[in-house]
């Protein structure tokens, strides 16, 4: 798409003197052989290549790799804000393993993630199928359905905090006064029975359009002849979905599910704003638990141990996902 309307134009000759290893500009035999040797070892574009990735390498080392290694060290210490860390070995991990609040946060995180991703997958598929079913104003409707995905998460969480409000919230108003389904209002976020489901709903609401738009892009890339051939062979709508659509977007589905699992497992803002983990810890998930441990209880070492407990499953997801994403690119 980017190449339309281009006509190759001759380049000004002063470009010859520019940077880069494209042409051997060196003179004299000795430097040339050294340059050739370097190019053989480091690759033909090594000078411009290293120059171009240098800023990125510095940033990634400084902002991700170094903090990450420092985190592993801190998790082996007792560290309070403003005080130097004291090495304690695996004590934080051992203590957490038998901590009931931590165990509950782990269980909640899995429920939160699993339920959210399943429903997002379902709704995303529904959205993509509707948008490919020949409706009018498709791009307008696509745009409208994507809004939850682009709006700031904090804004959405605050909107739902207001909608769910026990006394003045519109959800209770609708269910009690308008549709008369419930005899009286529910404290959606303050009652243990409904808090988790309410929080999960917000995550689904925010995240399903990403599934939908990704599946839509995948479905549009499936050649129309495949559907025609299937129709000629007498395949029903369901069979076409099962044997043409699903295989056609299989890779995208895997990538989107894995990506969303990572994001959902680490969702902080929605739970933090809606319930802060309450009532009575029923919606406590690991990121919020780690936050409260670090900045409520001021126990940094233990808080990082909480975060690092999430690492093994995440690392596995990340490695599998990275493979699929690279494969998706290689085509």
């Amino acid at each position: 798409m980017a190449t339309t309307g281009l006509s190759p134009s001759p380049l000004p000759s002063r470009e010859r003197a520019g940077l880069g290893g494209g042409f051997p500009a060196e003179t004299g035999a000795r430097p040339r052989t050294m340059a050739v040797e370097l190019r053989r070892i480091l690759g033909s574009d090594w000078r411009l290549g290293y120059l171009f990735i240098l800023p990125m390498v510095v940033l990634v080392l400084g902002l991700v790799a170094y903090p990450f290694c420092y985190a592993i060290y801190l998790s082996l210490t007792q560290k309070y804000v403003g005080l130097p860390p004291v090495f304690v070995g695996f004590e934080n991990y051992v203590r957490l393993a038998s901590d009931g609040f931590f165990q509950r946060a782990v269980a909640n995180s899995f429920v939160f993630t699993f339920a959210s991703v399943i429903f997002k997958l379902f709704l995303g598929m529904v959205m993509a199928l509707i948008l490919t079913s020949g409706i009018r104003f498709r791009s307008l409707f696509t745009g409208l359905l994507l809004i939850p995905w682009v709006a700031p998460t904090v804004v959405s969480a605050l909107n739902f905090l207001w909608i769910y409000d026990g006394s003045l919230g519109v959800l209770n108003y609708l269910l009690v006064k308008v549709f008369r389904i419930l005899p009286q209002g529910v404290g959606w976020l303050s009652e243990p029975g409904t808090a988790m489901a309410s929080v999960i709903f917000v995550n689904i609401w925010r995240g399903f359009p990403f599934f939908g738009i990704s599946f839509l892009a995948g479905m549009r890339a499936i050649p129309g002849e495949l559907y025609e051939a299937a129709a000629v062979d007498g395949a029903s709508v369901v069979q076409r979905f099962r044997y043409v659509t699903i295989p056609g977007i299989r890779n995208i589905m895997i990538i989107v599910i894995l990506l969303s699992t990572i994001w959902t497992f680490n969702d902080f803002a929605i739970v933090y704003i809606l319930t802060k983990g309450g009532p009575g810890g029923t919606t406590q998930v690991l990121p919020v638990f780690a936050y409260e441990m670090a900045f409520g209880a001021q126990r940094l070492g233990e808080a990082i141990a909480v975060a690092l407990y999430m690492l093994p499953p995440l690392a596995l997801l990340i490695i599998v996902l990275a493979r699929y994403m690279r494969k998706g690119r290689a085509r």
Partner: protein
Amino acid sequence: MTKTTVGRLQLGLSYGVLGLLLVMVLFPFYWMTITSLKSEDQMRSLVSMFWPSPVVFENYDQLLRKTDFTKWFANSAIVAVSSTLLATAVGTIGAYALARLRFRGRAFMSSATLITYLVPPSILFIPLYAQIRALGLSDSLAGLIAAYPSFTVPFVTWLLMGYFESIPVELEESAMIDGATRFGAFRRIILPLAAPGVLAAALYAFTQAWNEFLYALVFITDVKQRTLPVGLSGFITGDVYGWGYLMAGAVLTTVPVIVVYIYLQKYMVEGLTAGSVKG
């Protein structure tokens, strides 16, 4: 049933489900907007729930004059624009190198970029906080500008790698046969062609920085230095929620993102999203 009846039923079902989805998706935004236009009295009395009567602007007035909202808006703009410019510059040349240039370590760096992009902030926020503090950058916008590239740079790089790869390599090769250097070919040929993609990636990075919550919450304690998401969420810590001006703030925080998104929509439909793979 004939074929056309089945087709009509399917289409009817599509419109029906579409209607339900639209209500579910848009209602919170409708509710946010009308709440921001309701008077305090109307909100308490539950009359005319679904339309403000009368339409008042007192919430906006209160938000802009009595709270730090304008300061937060400026903070968010400074942080988002600066970190976006940084991320776009670093990410664009990095992506070009990883997509096109041949040098030792390229495959490793591609993987490292992708993995960095996938590592979530909830693992990094505490050590990054310790580091920002050690550098004396906590409680300053500079700390956020320094920290946000941790997610915007890998994202922009990954997105643009795909974009550069989609530009035919022959264009560069013919330029170089005409005497251009590698750098010259990048600057004169590839960069202009990739400009729409670079702009899209920059706008994505902008919305990510604009929406970011966790780092801003952790790094900043001074009320005046807050960004919009943290400032807005701070309205709910008191016992009395001012829902009217809170929703007015929510509306004004959402508007810039929606404006950016109107431009981005066509790229998103083409699959240039966070996953960004062709399948």
